[in-house]
């Protein structure tokens, strides 16, 4: 069930986007999301759409694959649209019973929907084209300056990558324990909320015990392999900026400039 969600799961293929330094992709995603809230006119959307389309094209990730992942958040999207549609005050367009749709509401909900879609596609593009390892490496490196503020940057990154490694294992284990308890007559489905919550105990207790057990084993295995935190550590796959990363940063800056220009001299309302 949980495994069906494809939203943002790494899509293995080779493309210039895949090969970009994770730091570039992290920064670009961040900048792109902010840029979506910079403009309020149609041209701005056009520029953002063109930019996104170009990146999708370059990433070699099939567009359909992304759309399939979007289904999971369709509800959220609809909710936003409906709220904006009916709850924005302004010039009345249509009135159905107690609900009024205003011109402003219509405009806002359309823009909001587009923004959300762009935002989701934009950020899932990052996870679709970057392996979790690369992502954590990128974060560790970008957060590097925080080390001076005593933020345990390396430890946070290590925790993230261990979590990612163990999620599939624990999911499988959940499935197994659940089945084992069902075989003993447990019922996880019927009853009210309190009964359901109570029914989770036979699942959660073994799961926690197993997780602690694994954590203990893993800590020992890491120590046995000379792990002692981020100090004295070298990297097997250190991050290096290449020429293409410089190019990518340049394009990103150009995109921002274009947007700012469009924002100020937008010719369409």
């Amino acid at each position, binding site marked *: 069930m949980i495994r069906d969600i494809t939203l943002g799961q790494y899509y293995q293929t080779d493309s210039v986007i895949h090969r970009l330094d994770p730091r570039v992709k992290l920064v670009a995603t961040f900048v792109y999301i902010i840029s979506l809230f910079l403009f309020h006119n149609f041209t701005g959307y056009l520029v953002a759409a063109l930019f996104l389309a170009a990146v999708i094209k370059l990433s070699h990730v099939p567009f359909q694959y992304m759309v399939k992942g979007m289904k999971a958040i369709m509800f959220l999207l609809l909710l936003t649209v409906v709220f904006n549609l009916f709850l924005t005050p302004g010039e009345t367009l249509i009135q159905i019973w107690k609900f009024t749709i205003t011109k402003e509401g219509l405009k806002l909900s359309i823009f909001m929907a587009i923004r959300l879609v762009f935002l989701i596609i934009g950020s899932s593009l990052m996870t679709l084209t970057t*392996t*979790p*390892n690369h992502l954590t490496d990128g974060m560790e490196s970008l957060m590097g300056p925080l080390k001076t503020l005593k933020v345990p940057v390396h430890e946070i990154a290590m925790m993230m*990558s*261990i979590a*990612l*490694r163990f999620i*599939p*294992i624990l999911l499988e284990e959940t499935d197994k324990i659940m089945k084992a308890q069902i075989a003993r007559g447990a019922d996880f489905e019927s009853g009210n909320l309190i009964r359901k919550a109570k029914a989770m105990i036979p699942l959660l207790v073994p799961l926690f015990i197993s997780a602690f*057990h*694994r954590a203990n*084993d*893993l800590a*020992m*295995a*890491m*120590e*046995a*392999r*000379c*792990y*002692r935190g981020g100090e*004295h*550590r*070298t*990297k*097997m*796959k*250190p991050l290096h900026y290449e020429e293409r990363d410089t190019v990518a940063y340049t394009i990103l800056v150009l995109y921002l400039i274009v947007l700012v220009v469009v924002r100020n001299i937008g010719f369409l309302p």
Partner: protein
Amino acid sequence: MGIIRTSKLIYEYIRRDEEGNPEGITRAVNDVDLDIKPGEFVAILGHNGSGKSTLAKHINAILHPTEGTVWVDGMDTTDEENVWDIRQRAGMVFQNPDNQIIGQVVEEDVGFGPENMGVPTKEIWERVEESLKAVGMYEYRKYSPNKLSGGQKQRVSIAGVLAMHPKCIILDEPTAMLDPNGRKEVIRAVRALNQVEGVTVLLITHYMEEVIHADRVIVMDQGRIELQGTPREVFSQVDRLKSLRLDVPQVTLLAYELKKAGVALPDGILTTQELVKALGDFAYASH
């Protein structure tokens, strides 16, 4: 002096009841003297709770002796300064394959040890390549560990230790959670390391078939060394092994039963071929 040496090693821990009050003291390892020579393949046998895993953890400086001393490559394990050197020289492979792989890609996991040791990037890659090749997992280097079988995962774990260029490897029941094919794979890889690369191996197991090829077998019970010798010497003491609640390869057991029934066979038969030959000799002699 041997690469691993223990002298009068004792390890005790305090048993506690549910409220955390001490209930008593358990002596998990009791007066163990060990001397393992470089290049040796030593197997430690014993049922669960016999102290064999506790002993192993001392060699990697995960546990420290209550009394006595452990030296790895001449270094005392209680000396804080030596800990990282010891862990590099005496690598350790554990029982559960899932709980010791840290990387999300095979090659990254193998590189974890060298990364921790501060090995330069270029050399890490060389070490990862040679280690994966040594255990026959090189073509899986880009795989996610979750996609591998138990035997393959254990071989990756062995490669991970190998990449640290240890002088000896301690394997703590590496096959206990594997199916028969996985078990064979792992033992084959371990034997190759010992014979081809000359790595000292300390294999802890309760599967008798796995110790037949060892240079020396040590049987532990209640924290003590009960028996010690070549596999043939140890397996010739079927009654003793049975009383220690260990079992014996079926061939050895059959030979032992036949001998008890009056067939004159040599002691400690370990393989089918030996039994067939011995029975042939016996049949020839009695006709």
